[in-house]
């Protein structure tokens, strides 16, 4: 770079065949290369992210059958959706399970991370241990939880002495069972993120606090939590996205049925979308559901973000 500048300064009128080339390569180096280097992500994103997003809008404006005819109907899918009781039922279920699963999950993860951050024997083993649920095969999870929450001869019914309770029959029971599954799978993941963030907190902050006589509890609330704010915001956003597009766990709970219980007791929006597209073959309607879900996630993410930014007060 320096070299180029020197040369052009020394000879204001450089040889015709050399100058454009070096000027071009300068421009290329400075302006194009950075964009070129970041471009693979954006190219892939526009093919696999942006295009489907836009295409879904296009599909949602049609009466489009998966293996059949298509017809332009404008916003009719959306107006129909807003009056669709099954859709609102799925929204209620999704939000209900989101609240029931995510809040305990993040609090639990925080406590777990704090515990793992302490000095103890076999610390690495415990730290790796929290990841085990994540690497467990989905099929195994389905089988095990299916047995745990079974109506007849189920472990949970035996434990709680609620013999013959059908966990899939009511909203409260199915939401609880599914939240347990979600938390079982994802608490460890969030705990690990918190743990990583905790380790990045400078030790001297704690030392100074100790010297000043701050208790462990006070240190946790006054140092750890505020310093973890970026991690908390991150986990809140990812859990919000994951929680609102909840699909795998409730489907596993229903043994693969996307209907979510006999009366849709635990059918989430994502399941309703899948059901519309692949069981009723209403591709256009399913796309409208997808867009509503997208909007919903944006909205809830915004509120979660605003809320979590206030955690720990001003920094």
């Amino acid at each position: 770079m320096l070299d180029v500048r020197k040369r052009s300064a020394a000879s204001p009128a450089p040889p015709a065949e050399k100058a454009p080339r070096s000027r071009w390569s300068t421009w290329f180096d400075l302006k194009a290369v950075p964009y070129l280097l970041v471009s693979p992500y954006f190219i892939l994103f526009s093919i696999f992210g942006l295009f489907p997003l836009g295409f879904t809008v296009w599909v949602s404006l049609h009466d489009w059958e998966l293996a059949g005819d298509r017809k332009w109907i404008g916003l009719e899918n959306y107006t129909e959706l807003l009056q669709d009781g099954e859709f609102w039922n799925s929204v209620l279920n999704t939000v209900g399970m989101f609240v029931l699963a995510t809040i305990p999950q993040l609090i639990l993860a925080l406590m777990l991370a704090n515990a793992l951050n302490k000095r103890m024997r076999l610390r690495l083993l415990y730290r790796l241990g929290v990841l085990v649920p994540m690497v467990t095969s989905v099929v195994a999870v389905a089988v095990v939880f299916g047995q745990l929450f079974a109506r007849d001869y189920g472990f949970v019914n035996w434990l709680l002495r609620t013999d013959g309770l059908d966990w899939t029959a009511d909203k409260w029971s199915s939401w609880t069972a599914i939240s347990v599954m979600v938390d079982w799978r994802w608490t460890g993941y969030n705990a690990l993120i918190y743990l990583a963030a905790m380790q990045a907190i400078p030790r001297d902050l704690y030392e100074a606090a100790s010297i000043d006589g701050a208790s462990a509890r006070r240190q946790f609330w006054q140092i750890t939590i505020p310093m973890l704010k970026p991690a908390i915001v991150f986990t809140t956003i990812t859990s919000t996205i994951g929680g609102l597009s909840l699909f795998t766990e409730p489907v596993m709970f229903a043994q693969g049925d996307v209907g979510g219980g006999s009366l849709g007791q635990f059918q989430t929006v994502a399941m309703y979308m899948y059901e519309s597209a692949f069981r009723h073959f209403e591709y256009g309607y399913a796309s409208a559901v997808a867009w509503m879900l997208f909007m919903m996630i944006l909205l809830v993410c915004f509120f979660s973000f605003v809320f979590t930014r206030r955690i720990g007060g001003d920094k």
Partner: protein
Amino acid sequence: MKFTRRSTAIAAVLAGVLAAGSACSSDDSADSGKITLTVDTFGSFGYEELFEQYEKDNPGITIEHRNEKEHEKVYVPNLLKYLETGSGAGDVVALEEGVLTNLRGQSDKFADLNQYGGAELKDDFLPWKWSLGQSLDGKSLMALGTDVGGLAMCYRTDLFEKAGLPTDREEVGQLWPTWQAYVDTGKKFQEKVPDTKFVDGLTTLFNAVLSQEAPKNGNVTYFDASEKYIADTNPAVKSAFDFVAGLDQDQLSAGLKSFTPQWQTGFKKDSFATMACPAWMLGVIKENSGDTYDDKWDVAAVPGGGGNWGGSFLAVPKQSEHPKEAADLAKFLTSAKSQITAFKAVNALPTSPEALADPQVKDAKNDYFNDAPVGEIFATTATSLQPVQLGVKNVDVRTVFEDILVALGQDKLDAGEAWQKAIEDGRDKAE
């Protein structure tokens, strides 16, 4: 096989849900002069032996068999996706009755088998099975029948003995000439054996009774011949519904949904003593019950005299690159001889009059079921079966009714509410 709505393999379901996009295309090694034909099936068709034989008889053909255990949530969505996008489907695909009905208006997506000598095969099939394979406009032959779902009633001899009921299949059949008699038997059974419910669940019996009631009411169920939604006015639907609601009222049902793990556990925990079984269900019972229950199950006549439940077809998608060879294979697989082989393998009841009359089918006995003469029981009902005319949206409405019957069993709805909700939600799905 077929009608595996609530399919057995959770593994397959979930793997499928997660990897619903995975598709393999048939690869041709055209240069070597060999043709590879891909065959898509679901559940179990019992074709393995036939494929080997066909490859041996036709050296130029290699068969790639893609089987998917789960039907409604994996096999069907994938198939429809292949048809929509025009690639990915097998050269020969299996279609369940309800799915075929759904596709009959889209004959342009399938090869016309009449062009490959299909028309001559008419007498090889039961007449109604043959006509179901025709496209809606009647111009082309879309599919050839593989099997039919003749109906019987399976029961546990040891539990019947405990309840002081006869155990011989003839006498048991005479216990319930009508469904009312079946309920009365159930009540007697329930008094003596309170820990075991008489029936596994409501949905199976609902479908069975509906298939018997339909012929009495113009041979239609949820839709009339002009595709009008008539579930609310068709007496067949109402009487089938009332019958199972009564079963629930009398607490004769274990409230289990077929093909769920709970249902599978129920076999080994004596949760139920009888269940309606189409021919192919025998294999399912054997698989779920295991050796301990060998000879504890038996097969008797179904109340109300016969019924038709499910049944499948083979078709050749138009996207196939070798439609002629594929059609030949489909013709081979649905021939009388092949149907006998499939019957022996997985108890798939033939749809060919010739195969049904064959001693290998007619005189077949099943040693797991006390040497029950399954050939006699099922083959006799098969010839008297009535074709039930299904609407294009039949599967959607049926799912609504089944879900609501489960809710009824869970005491989430009373019978009156359940009926109202079923006909209204059904109407929503029908439109």
